């Protein structure tokens, strides 16, 4: 089975503090992993994908196949980072299904 787990529904950090949103996956093939973000009253949008190995808005995520994790990190949280974050997995070996975690609501406290 393909599963994406985000253990934290809610996460609060102070402005300037480091933030880590956890994501673990279960997948029998080679995973394609993504982080999506939804700001208040906006559509769900792509934040970053593991294949690009890029930093977007100061966020990075490293795929750890040994731990089957794809945690999202930012060294210094900003108030504008407050949003809902979803981890997602593209299942390329079983019908191209796109699985999402249940999401983590991040609040950055000023």
């Amino acid at each position, binding site marked *: 089975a393909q599963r994406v787990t*985000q253990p934290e*529904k809610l996460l609060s950090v102070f402005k300037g503090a480091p933030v880590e949103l956890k994501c673990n996956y279960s997948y029998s093939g080679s995973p*394609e992993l*993504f982080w*999506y973000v939804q700001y208040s009253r906006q*559509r*769900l*949008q*792509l934040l970053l*994908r593991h*294949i*690009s190995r890029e930093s977007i808005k100061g966020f990075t995520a490293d795929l750890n196949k040994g731990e089957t994790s794809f945690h999202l990190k930012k060294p210094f949280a900003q108030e504008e980072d407050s949003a809902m974050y*979803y981890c*997602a997995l*593209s299942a*390329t070996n079983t*019908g*191209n*299904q*796109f*699985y*999402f*975690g*249940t*999401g983590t609501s991040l609040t950055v406290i000023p």
Partner: protein
Amino acid sequence: GAGVSQSPSNKVTEKGKDVELRCDPISGHTALYWYRQSLGQGLEFLIYFQGNSAPDKSGLPSDRFSAERTGGSVSTLTIQRTQQEDSAVYLCASRPRTGGNSPLHFGNGTRLTVT
């Protein structure tokens, strides 16, 4: 178009009525997905279309739910005999091709309220 377009943006209906939700994907995108977003439930997969292949309907919660995609473009999600538990935001997404690293592009969603 510039992005995935969904209509209506809001729909209020009485329990027992049928509703139709429309999705217009990005031009040229071959894959189209429907999800349901409820508070505390994350994104629940409903159905997926890829080109002319048979759709993956494995996520539809009951036979009251159905979807079509005409001409490989516009899709309509139909909910018959709506129930209060159908209240949610229904999201449509498309991607240029399946497999690999192509991400989903989402619409703004349709907020359905069943009274």
